[in-house]
């Protein structure tokens, strides 16, 4: 879906002191997509650009404007890259390189990547988010925010490729994996992810609207979930069957 991915394209000049980039793509439970979409809406982030694929296989129409499926938003010192389509194996490296290119050109201090980890029979009232960092300095951020560290387990599929690319780049990255239902849209897990991001970034995100929409999010996202699973299954994704050990 990201055939012949080009470099990220920004519509206007960006300030050089921006620090955090939130990254959400369709994955287990659609956590990344739902969480980052809500944060973008809550913070009233501005659409500032797109990561282009050429030729575009799909476009969206929003407010009478044609927009691509992978978009870049900004508010203050926070950027967000959101994909409304699953990133398949053929294009995931190009996608990750585009994200890194964008981050380097905009002096991003930290990337927060959001995803899920399969936990059968999880308790929706006490979901956990586990953190994985590529830079030692971010270990303290996990500790300060009481985020258990992802100590052992397997990450596969697009997440693995993206994390490998980010790890090999010089940009500090924090991956947040929340316990979720891997096969169905999981707004409860997305909400837990939002709470965790809210703590890390010290921003207040009102979840009232999100809570009202939980059932509808599950209904509306059936198609995207199906497409995402098809992509992940094509890559022989195997969900981790056990949650990682708790960070001490």
């Amino acid at each position, binding site marked *: 879906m990201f055939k012949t991915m080009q470099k990220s394209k920004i519509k206007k000049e960006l300030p050089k002191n921006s620090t955090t980039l939130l990254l959400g793509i369709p994955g287990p439970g659609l956590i990344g997509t739902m969480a980052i979409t809500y944060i973008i809406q809550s913070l009233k982030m501005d659409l500032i650009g797109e990561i282009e694929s050429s030729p575009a296989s799909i476009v969206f129409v929003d407010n009478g404007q044609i927009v691509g499926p992978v978009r870049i938003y900004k508010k203050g010192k926070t950027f967000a890259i959101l994909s409304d389509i699953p990133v398949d194996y053929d294009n995931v490296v190009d996608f990750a390189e585009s994200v890194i290119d964008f981050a380097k050109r905009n002096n991003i201090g930290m990337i927060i990547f959001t995803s899920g980890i399969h936990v059968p029979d999880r308790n*929706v009232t006490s979901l956990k988010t586990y953190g994985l960092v590529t830079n030692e300095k971010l270990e303290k951020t996990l500790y300060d925010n009481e985020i258990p560290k992802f100590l052992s387990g397997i990450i596969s599929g697009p997440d693995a490729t993206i994390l490998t690319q980010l790890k090999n780049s010089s940009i500090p990255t924090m991956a947040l994996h929340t316990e979720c*239902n891997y*096969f*169905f*849209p999981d707004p409860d897990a997305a909400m837990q992810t939002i709470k965790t991001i809210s703590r890390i970034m010290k921003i207040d995100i009102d979840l009232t609207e999100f809570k009202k929409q*939980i*059932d*509808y999010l*599950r*209904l509306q996202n*059936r*198609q995207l*979930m*199906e*497409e995402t699973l098809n992509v992940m299954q094509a890559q022989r994704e195997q969900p981790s069957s056990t949650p990682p050990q708790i960070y001490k």
Partner: protein
Amino acid sequence: MSDFSSIIEKQMNYVFGNTLFDDFIHKELVPLSHLKERHASWTLEVDLPLVDKKNLEVTLAENHLTVKAKLTKTYCISRGSAVTEFDYFKKTVKLPGGINTKQISANFKNGILKITMPKPADGKKISVK
């Protein structure tokens, strides 16, 4: 189904994918489901948001299991100026062979229907040489 219907269905499936197209064709929402094989059973999970347990119907006919559920609120999908209303979920799933149908059980929690279908415990003995 006529040839024309068949062609149109193929085209629509290409554009919208199976789930959304099935919604419109049958006027019923098609829930997501996941069938998993376990050591001694098969488990079918069906995602049924906006559903109360009392409005849930599960029927077994030969090797097909059908789940039908009335929504607590009408769900509308808009496409251009057309609005389609949905009041039901419905899905029929072909079951794997060799299930002990008398032992099938189901529970419904947090909008997810979980149907457990045990594999037969006894069978023909095979001698090991």
